[in-house]
């Protein structure tokens, strides 16, 4: 069998980079060899870790691994006798070149090039880093089997140009551009002119055809996206709005020459930078003599900009998660803590003292115990804190989750909760503190876990609303590819991106989100930012429902956190400055001013930087946080559907806003 495999190309020193903080593996870069291999069943690109090379060749295991399957568990570890080789084998890559849909090649100036391969079903492999070069040579070999063209929109993206060799030999003029598979996207718009495709294009296919496909796309960009082509007849516009932006007001109809809401209409995205994290010295400087934090808003702003030094996380998180009140004194905090310790053990005792005899008649509790049992065994076991058999921290995880069942019996235990607890426990290293901080974190996301899943549905539709305004083109694409429900963001939202970032990154991301800056529901804008970065890949590969889901699943652990946060904040600022931002979107982001009827006092602030909570404790420091605020103070946070207070601090003012938004809608 092995003799039938012919190596067409091979290159050593090709590495996969992994995150050492998250695994027991000590090598951040796993060395391996990349092949182009002719097999009886087709031509394959393969990558194997060095450790596996000799063994696999001896044992002729090429076929065993010769499936297109690839599991996105780069950070998990196989347990087996031959530990290292086995641990490394999971990184192996193998796929038929005919399954290749596109790839990204990046060759940074002073560094080696890397390639990310993406298959037709959306499977996305980890980047292969060519430390000693060879990426171009591989692609050159590859070109003898497939035709590749560069994306006109993304320099790093290359699309495999399907497929029929005869078709490629024809001139573009002979080719009916509308029936060629690679122009399905064009076709989509042409066949549905009401979707906003300029009719001019249909009259002038020659221009488009002449220049080949990249020109087509440029043409689309230049003409479709250019502002002067966006003015459309009113009736058509109304139809469009009705159809595509449900819930959006068409009050602008009587405005002559009303323009389509599109990306080009948004103000340019400002450049946003991240800063240093909050350090101990700085943190200490905020406390006055009785231990009260003097400038809460400034503290939050620093955390939003740069996060928290891991050394003081356990302390700062207690404020962010409502364990301590922001305006508490040292003395009050001591009392608070003592009460919380007592409370915790009281609730823990409640389930601890249920006998197995009793539990036989208490199915609900038994079921929850079963779920927790199973999930504790499979929560972040590759992280040092939870790894190894009989790790005592697993028991702590279990106890906290069981106690949470008692604390919030109506919600109980739902899968995903253990994912939220794990990073908190790692930071707190203390059962009681971790429990209460977990309860605080859950307060923000508990609607995600409710039986009817309404919280999830609301948020996914809110992403949709935001996308319609931020990027109508991508939005229309997703809608026409069965993905308008944004289900592929489900995991992101359910557990706040927990599975998408490395452990230390998720801690950073969460503390940023917990500041409630720069607006409410900022996590939804983070979703927009990630999707914005994947736009070319999704659209130019013409991915459908299945492939989009797969690709989005597979980019987990390779999303750059800081870039994403900067982009997200930039998008927020764009939206905020946008004059025609639909009311529904303002509502999602908490940018609606409080109605006059609520409070004359408050109405003074309408349109200014913040504010609804004149009475809140930190109102004095509001001056310190000018442009960041959306329309409400950062100390408040309305939940997704605006019907539940999500932060104990803001309970009072939330209810005001809730009523306010009801009045306004």
């Amino acid at each position, binding site marked *: 069998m092995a003799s039938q495999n012919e190596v067409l190309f091979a290159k050593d020193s090709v590495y996969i980079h992994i995150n050492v903080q998250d695994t027991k593996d000590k090598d951040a870069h796993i060395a391996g060899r990349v092949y182009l291999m002719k097999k009886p069943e087709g031509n394959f690109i393969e990558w194997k870790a060095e450790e596996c090379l000799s063994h696999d060749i001896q044992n002729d295991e090429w076929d065993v691994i010769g499936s297109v399957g690839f599991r996105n568990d780069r950070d998990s570890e*196989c347990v087996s006798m031959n530990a290292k080789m086995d641990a490394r084998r999971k990184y192996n890559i193998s796929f038929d070149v005919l399954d290749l849909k596109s790839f990204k090649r990046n060759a940074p100036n002073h560094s080696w090039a890397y390639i990310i391969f993406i298959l037709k079903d959306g499977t996305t492999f980890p980047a292969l880093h060519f430390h000693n070069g060879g990426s171009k040579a591989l692609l050159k070999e590859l070109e003898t089997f497939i035709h590749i063209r560069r994306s006109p929109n993304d320099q790093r993206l290359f699309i495999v140009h399907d497929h029929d060799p005869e078709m490629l030999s024809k001139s573009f003029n002979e080719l009916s551009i509308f029936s060629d598979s690679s122009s399905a996207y064009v076709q989509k718009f042409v066949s549905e002119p009401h979707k906003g495709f300029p009719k001019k294009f249909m009259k002038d296919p020659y221009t488009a055809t002449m220049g080949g496909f990249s020109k087509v796309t440029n043409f689309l960009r230049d003409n479709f996206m250019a502002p002067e082509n966006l003015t459309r007849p009113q009736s058509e516009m109304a139809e469009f709005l009705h159809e595509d932006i449900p819930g959006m007001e068409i009050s602008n109809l009587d405005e002559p020459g009303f323009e389509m809401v599109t990306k080009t209409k948004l103000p340019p995205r400002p450049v946003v930078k991240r800063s240093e994290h909050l350090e101990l010295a700085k943190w200490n400087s905020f406390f006055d003599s009785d231990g009260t934090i003097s400038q809460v808003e400034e503290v939050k702003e620093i955390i939003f900009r740069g996060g928290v030094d891991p050394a003081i996380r356990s302390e700062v998180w207690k404020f962010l998660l409502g364990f301590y009140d922001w305006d508490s004194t040292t003395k009050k905090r001591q009392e608070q803590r003592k009460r919380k310790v007592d409370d915790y053990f009281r609730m823990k005792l409640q389930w601890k003292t249920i006998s197995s005899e009793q539990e036989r008649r208490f199915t609900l509790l038994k079921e929850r115990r079963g779920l927790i049992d199973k999930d504790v065994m499979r929560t972040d076991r590759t992280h040092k804190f939870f790894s190894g058999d009989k790790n005592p921290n697993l028991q702590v995880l279990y106890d906290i989750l069981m106690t949470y069942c008692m604390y919030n019996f109506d919600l109980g235990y739902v899968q995903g909760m253990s994912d939220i607890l794990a990073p908190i426990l790692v930071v707190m290293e203390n059962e009681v503190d971790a429990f209460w901080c977990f309860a605080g974190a859950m307060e923000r996301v508990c609607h995600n876990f409710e039986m009817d899943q309404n919280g999830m549905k609301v948020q996914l539709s809110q992403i949709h609303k935001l996308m319609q305004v931020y990027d109508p083109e991508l939005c229309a694409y997703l809608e026409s590819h069965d993905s308008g429900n944004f289900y592929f963001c489900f995991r992101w939202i359910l557990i706040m991106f927990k599975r998408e970032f490395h452990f230390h990154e998720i801690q950073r991301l969460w503390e940023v989100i917990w500041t409630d800056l720069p607006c409410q529901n900022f996590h939804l804008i983070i979703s927009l930012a990630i999707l914005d970065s994947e736009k070319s890949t999704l659209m130019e590969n013409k991915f459908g429902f299945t492939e989009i889901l797969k690709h989005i699943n597979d980019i987990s652990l390779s999303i750059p956190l800081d870039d994403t946060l900067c982009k997200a904040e930039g998008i927020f600022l764009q939206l905020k400055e946008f004059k025609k931002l639909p009311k529904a979107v303002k509502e999602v982001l908490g940018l609606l001013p409080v109605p006059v009827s609520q409070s004359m006092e408050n109405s003074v602030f309408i349109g200014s930087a913040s504010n609804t909570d004149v009475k809140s404790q930190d109102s004095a420091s509001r001056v310190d946080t000018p442009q960041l605020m959306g329309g409400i103070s950062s100390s408040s946070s309305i939940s997704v559907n605006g019907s539940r207070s999500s932060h104990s601090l803001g309970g009072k003012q939330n209810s005001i806003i809730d009523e306010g938004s009801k009045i306004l809608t």
Partner: protein
Amino acid sequence: MASRKKVLLKVIILGDSGVGKTSLMNQYVAKKFSNQYKATIGADFLTKEVMVDDRLVTMQIWDTAGQERFQSLGVAFYRGADGCVLVFDVTMPNTFRSLDSWRDEFLIQASPRDPENFPFVVIGNKIDLENRAVSARRAQGWCHSKGDIPYFETSAKEAINVEQAFQAVAKNAMAQESDVELCSDFPDPIKLKDDQAKPRENCAC
């Protein structure tokens, strides 16, 4: 040499949380078991190429979260399924009792053309454990009552019978397919199942 024509079979794995769906899928596709897989959130799939009766078939195996409340959003994946693997844990009788509702829910949501003869396979997993609580006879009885669904006892951990169970669902799904007329969609191995719901201009079917 195998034909380049590929057929895509979409197979859904269903069953209560923790019965071993993710482990079975990984054992089948990647031939490995790890007790460190995370609980599934949302949905994902793996693909594997297999030969079924001399045909090269790409199996797209979908794995979803088992907890009941996540099903309402998850049903989008049932659409266009060619086969369904129902899994229970032989040490947990309640997971066996759930099979009825998993099957019913699937048939309602996926609404296959011929529900009576839809290719199901039932897997009783974790037979490597000592504390078995559902007998093979009982499981077989249920399978028989549902139109003779093939029944397999497996261990994802020790790779017992996993291959056979998935091979069976592939084979039965292929048999159904060929009844309907095979749709060979060279060169793209992804069959856009959604075509059934929404006609597309260039469907080769």
